[in-house]
């Protein structure tokens, strides 16, 4: 990728807190116009990494360039050109929503000509005169997004933007991100919802214990699992070992899950048919049989041997 088309370049970035290596030798490149997702469980190093990119934390070693700028040495210039939504922040509690928009717009060299139109876009128009502290969680989150957009940024950074939102609000947030992306802007988001990364992102980096363990398009990550389908079921009448199902046709892997099993298979039909015959022969009672196409949750499980949310 040529330098001018890169929105972000990280090379061997390391951040330690005492003995804990929060971010461990991370390298990645993001092109202008991409929606890039950083996924991983809580404590994986997502926030530390995104905050180093946003100029809030200094890496111990390695180099970061955002829009060609060094976040430490050129932080003011960088902050003019990026939009940031942070975890665990607030604005002045008694500030009214439209005052907040005006105040933040005044801090930038260049801001939207009519920043108050953001309130319309974000369905906050009827809250324009409400004080920030009186808003619901979802409304506060939308104000945070409006504030991240007031300077018409080239890159948006969203850290766990939909955590704590109801499904409807989350969908609305996704639409908003897609609209922003549609105008040629770059988005860098972190999430611990795999379905969110899958629905939104052009490319996804999976981070665990501070290391990037996979980086590709969601489709490729799933495809590379070489597990076309999952067959899920429970055995209700007696205890069985997972090895019993490993010999079924096309099965690549067997995982016990909850009180049943998951068969990863390259041919769902063949596996399912043989599973039912096998059960007949062995006198097993099967229950809650269903098939699923794999998603990024399975990628994480396959890469780490752990569930994303546990």
């Amino acid at each position, binding site marked *: 990728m040529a330098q001018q088309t890169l929105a972000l370049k990280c090379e061997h970035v390391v951040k330690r807190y005492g003995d804990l290596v929060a971010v461990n030798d991370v390298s990645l490149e993001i092109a202008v116009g991409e929606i890039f997702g950083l996924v991983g469980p809580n404590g994986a190093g997502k926030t530390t990494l995104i905050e180093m990119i946003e100029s809030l934390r200094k890496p111990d070693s390695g180099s970061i360039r955002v829009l060609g700028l060094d976040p430490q040495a050129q932080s003011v210039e960088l902050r003019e050109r990026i939009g940031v939504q942070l975890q665990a922040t607030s604005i002045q509690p008694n500030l009214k929503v439209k005052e907040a928009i005006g105040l933040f717009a005044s801090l*930038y060299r260049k801001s939207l000509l009519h920043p108050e139109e953001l309130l319309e876009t974000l369905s906050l128009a009827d809250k324009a005169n409400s004080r920030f502290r009186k808003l619901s969680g979802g409304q506060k989150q939308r104000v945070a997004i409006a504030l991240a957009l007031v300077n018409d940024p080239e890159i948006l950074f969203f850290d766990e933007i939909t955590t704590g939102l109801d499904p409807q609000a989350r969908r609305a947030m996704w639409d908003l991100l897609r609209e922003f992306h549609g105008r040629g802007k770059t988005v860098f988001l972190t999430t611990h919802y795999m379905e969110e990364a899958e629905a939104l992102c052009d490319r996804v980096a999976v981070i665990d214990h501070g290391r990037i363990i996979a980086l590709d398009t969601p489709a490729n990550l799933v495809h590379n699992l070489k597990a076309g389908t999952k067959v899920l079921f429970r055995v209700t009448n007696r205890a069985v070992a997972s090895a019993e199902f490993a010999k079924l046709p096309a099965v690549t892997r067997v995982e016990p899950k909850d009180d049943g099993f998951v068969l990863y298979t390259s041919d769902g039909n063949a596996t399912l048919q043989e599973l039912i015959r096998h059960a007949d022969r062995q006198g097993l009672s099967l229950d809650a049989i269903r098939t699923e196409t794999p998603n990024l949750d399975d990628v994480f499980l396959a890469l780490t041997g752990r569930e994303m949310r546990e």
Partner: protein
Amino acid sequence: MRGLAKLAWSEFRLTLRDPMTAFWSLAFPALWFLLMVVVIGMPIPGFDYHGQGFASLVFPASISLVILSTSFIGVPIALTTYREAGVLRRLRVTPVKVTTLVAAYSLSQLAFTVVGVAVVTILAMGFFEVRILGSALAFVGVLFCAMVTFLALGSAIGSVARTTRTANIIIWSAFTPMLMLSELFMPLSLLPRWLQPIAKALPLTPVNTLLRDIVFGVALGDLWRFGVLGAWAVVSLVLTVRFFRWE
């Protein structure tokens, strides 16, 4: 300093929205003035009032209290509460500079100081026949120096203290000695001899003394008092720059 005016203005309005703070900073010195003059109203025997009443002694002390109860308390509490709530952290990802932020919170408190001074002055000159016998310009000049110094002190406290709890401890452990030792209640000459140099080095003492000298029309002989104010201001600004933290 982009955003300074907007930040200062919004901070000013936010303080007004918290009526307890506004009341405390504006009404406390006025109430104190009335309490001293009307309820206590006891001139110190042998003190030279230059032909004026007891109120002319309470007046400069009340102005000192205005400065103490606005800038000195308002700025650090704004900084620490915003730091604790993550407001400073949010502002940090904008291009705003520390100096702009601190200047904005100071300007907002300055407005309250000016209003507080006006209230006490109207009360004293309009209802209790206090006259400024010296130069009114010098009076305003001393006020200005005092405000700058106490805003700087407030910023320093808000920077050195990370939390509102710590800020309150620092504020009140400095507030009480200044109240007792800066000639607000009793003349320096009544203090034990060893305590007098300490009292003279406190930042509120020169403010109170200089204002009182101007009210009584006494020549400002002790210009070193401005040095005391200046020294506190410089030390405070250094502490602010050195210790300011966004989170």
